[in-house]
């Protein structure tokens, strides 16, 4: 017995020997919360905002967003646009990778070709619904990557040819999928190991990795001294900590462990009541649109009924969105009655947000019990059915969505006699497989915009659009969208802008979706931290201009 004890003690000593020491280099002063793990630091693989944020800390693209959300030059010193708006020529500045190599136009050509060829989730952004890079769709489908419309006539000049003029192309260049990768360095690594450790990752941006392994909850960054704008960076480095619960985030902020945390729901409520803490609270819309998607496939086994527009309108008008955001989301989210979220996509000329007028579709999207009951009565008459049993599926990855669906169920069942909603929680993967394969009636969707233009939402509902299949197809809608992306209207800013309102009207008149609310960020930030830029799309937080007091 004693021998066994001794042996185990020895074993423990052996296991823990060599665990001490090895503390982080530099004294890190800024600690920032991440809501989820970084999935990949490879810009061709990354699909989540967390990864995009860390990539953008370390790598600069052609352009960057200033604190007002305007695109300003980053690696590109300047750029020229051809007369027809279809050719962009970027003139690169003298920048270096952290291993000393110069950043060249070839690095961009390599990265863009690779992303199209890999055809991962975000390759779509190169294609004809967004950036319209010439031949991108063909390369994604397996074509020769050399045919992609990008070229590097000399190391400092990067030329992009487009299929159609894209009015927001410069701001799109802030998106990590368009960032460069050092080809020589990439090829020197084992397959798949790019971006899995500080040694296998090159940065040309403000910061570089000090400590990182995939899946880690703690990422440490340090200042990159070879950054072209290094003089302007006052932060020596900072660290990210993955925190998954809002309650935990709140305590770690109170404790001083973290300087910037996101909180939600009850924690926001709690902070608002606390005079001291509430000084550190900031809330602002995040550009995430939460909406109910209706599966309108008439053959859908349990709810062909939803192909009836009046039933959809009835449900949409039976939901009290103000109550949802006030009572259940509670983080400053804004009730939304348009298909494009509020405080999103400002008009380049007037500066007015696209969805500024929330009342413009109030005849079809509002909270009006008597009207929704009229719609229901019509639906019942048209379908010859009195009871509707609908499955509402949602992915069970947030506290808010769980509460929202319960509130929707309660409101709809109360306001619309005869309609019954069954809640179906499921893991994200199963949820995605159901929404993409026609196996649902109602789905709670939470859509993250990729770029600051209404199109990031409006392309969702075209016949060939994203894979969340409402099974709704409208030739007129499709035409407006294709005119606006690659057709006649692409070059005419005002006409395109107005056409998008027409498209939105078709969408909401048909109640293809029931918009619910624009989500918000509620953050607690230490008073000594200044200069973090928040954006609604793409890279949502930028730490380049941070100053610690």
């Amino acid at each position, binding site marked *: 017995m004693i021998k066994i004890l001794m042996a185990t003690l020895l074993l423990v000593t052996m296991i823990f020997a060599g665990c001490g020491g090895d503390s982080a280099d530099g004294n890190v002063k800024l600690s920032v919360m991440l809501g989820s793990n970084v999935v990949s630091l490879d810009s061709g693989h990354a699909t989540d905002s967390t990864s995009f944020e860390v990539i953008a800390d370390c790598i600069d693209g052609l352009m960057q967003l200033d604190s007002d959300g305007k695109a300003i030059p980053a690696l590109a010193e300047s750029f020229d646009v051809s007369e027809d708006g279809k050719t962009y020529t970027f003139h690169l500045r003298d920048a270096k990778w952290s291993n000393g190599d110069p950043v060249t136009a070839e690095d961009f050509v390599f990265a863009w070709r690779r992303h199209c060829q890999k055809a991962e989730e975000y390759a779509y952004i190169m294609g004809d619904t967004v950036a319209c890079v010439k031949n991108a769709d063909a390369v994604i489908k397996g074509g020769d990557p050399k045919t992609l419309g990008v070229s590097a006539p000399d190391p400092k000049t990067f030329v992009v040819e487009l299929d159609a003029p894209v009015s927001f192309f410069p701001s799109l260049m802030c998106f990590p999928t368009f960032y460069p990768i050092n080809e020589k360095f990439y090829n020197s690594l084992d397959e798949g190991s790019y971006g899995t450790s500080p040694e296998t990752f090159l940065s040309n941006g403000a910061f570089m990795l000090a400590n990182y392994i995939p899946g880690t909850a703690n990422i440490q960054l340090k200042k990159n001294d070879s950054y072209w704008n290094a003089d302007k960076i006052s932060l020596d480095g900072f660290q990210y900590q993955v925190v998954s*619960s*809002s*309650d935990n985030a*709140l*305590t770690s902020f109170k404790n001083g462990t973290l300087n910037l945390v996101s909180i939600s*729901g*009850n*924690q926001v*409520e*709690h902070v608002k009541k606390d005079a001291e803490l509430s000084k550190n609270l900031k809330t602002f819309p995040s550009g995430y649109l939460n909406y109910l998607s209706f599966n309108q496939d008439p053959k859908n086994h349990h709810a062909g009924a939803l192909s009836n527009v009046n039933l959809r309108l009835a449900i949409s008008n039976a939901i*009290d969105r103000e*109550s949802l955001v006030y*009572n*259940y989301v509670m983080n400053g989210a804004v009730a939304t009655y348009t298909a494009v979220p509020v405080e999103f996509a400002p008009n380049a000329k007037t500066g007015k947000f696209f969805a500024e007028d929330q009342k413009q579709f109030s005849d079809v999207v509002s909270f009006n019990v008597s009207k929704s009951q009229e719609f229901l009565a019509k639906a019942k008459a048209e379908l010859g059915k009195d009871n509707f049993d609908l499955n509402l599926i949602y*992915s*069970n*990855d947030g*506290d808010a969505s*769980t*509460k929202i*669906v*319960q*509130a929707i*169920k*309660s409101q709809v069942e109360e306001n619309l006699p005869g309609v019954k909603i*069954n*809640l*179906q*929680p*499921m*893991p994200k993967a*199963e949820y995605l497989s159901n929404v993409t394969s026609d196996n649902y009636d109602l789905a709670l969707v939470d859509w993250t915009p990729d770029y600051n233009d209404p199109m990031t939402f409006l392309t969702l509902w075209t016949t060939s659009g994203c894979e969340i299949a409402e099974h709704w197809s409208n030739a007129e809608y499709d035409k407006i969208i294709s005119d606006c992306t690659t057709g006649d209207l692409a070059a005419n800013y005002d006409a395109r802008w107005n056409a998008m309102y027409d498209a939105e009207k078709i969408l909401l008149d048909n109640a293809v979706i029931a918009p619910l609310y624009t989500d918000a960020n509620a953050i607690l930030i230490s008073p000594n931290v200044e200069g973090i830029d928040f954006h609604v799309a793409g890279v949502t937080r930028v730490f380049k201009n941070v100053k610690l007091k």
Partner: protein
Amino acid sequence: MNKDDFEFISDRDISVDENFASQGYWKGVAVHFFRNKFAVTGLILIIVIMLFAIFAPIVSTYSYDQIVAVTDAGGKEVIAKSLSPQIGDGSAQNFFADKTFIFGTDDMGRDLWTRTWQGARVSLIIAFVAIFIDMLIGTSYGLISGFFGGIVDHILQRFIEIAGSVPTLVIISILAIFMEKGIGLVIVSLLITEWIGMSKIARAECLKLKEREYVLASRTLGAGSFHIIFKQILPNTIGPIITQVMFSIPVAIFTEAFLSFVGVGIVLPQCSIGSLIEAGFNNITILPYQILPPICVLAILMLGFNLIGDGFREALAPKLEDM
């Protein structure tokens, strides 16, 4: 030989011990059980919880999924969410001062008293399913495997290794293709996974006991294998088996909570003790009263089950009582 060579025993005057009247086995167990005041306390605790679980939701003013709300002077709907426990004497500083929420309300504005007992229903069902699975499947599997040994044991043990290696999440995701989500799905997945621990215990006990003299004696007298397993060995393994059952109850309850957490468990707005703990956990430092009722109910439930288990064990194997 003829009939006269025999005489009826009943005709003879045999002495019957009247001080220690013979009694049936189960009657003896019952007597022992009820003489044990801890066991009776346990039984009372469980019965009380069961009565609350059955009647509290029926009697309650609110239904378990009802969001309590009033309309204020401005016509705005106010929801009774996140209220700490209050009795409706008007002392609470909120719109609902006249309403009673013994355990407070949750962050959806539902009465936690009703929800706790509604949840206790679900968890009691799960607890009994767990007991059933352990007793029936786990025990017999383990005993058979341990008793026969050799090739039977090998095959059965390798099957356990295979069955035990598939993650519960994988099993339940696949089951979810064929079944409606909800308590039924949870029970089926528990059926598939929860017996393994018990079968290990039963097998180990069987290995220990099967070489004992009374087993040998029984076998010599011509008893069949199954007779030996279930009549000779089983009663003697009852101690560890009951202990194991006690542990599979909370494990089953928490497995259900974990499944709800990942999104394959009980379907909202229904609730279970596990899912209530899970929900309270999200706000544990700012609204601690939300997690206390379900944890307390679970603790009482566990205490009760354990006391009953101990009582049973001692009643079934009275030798321990003489110590």
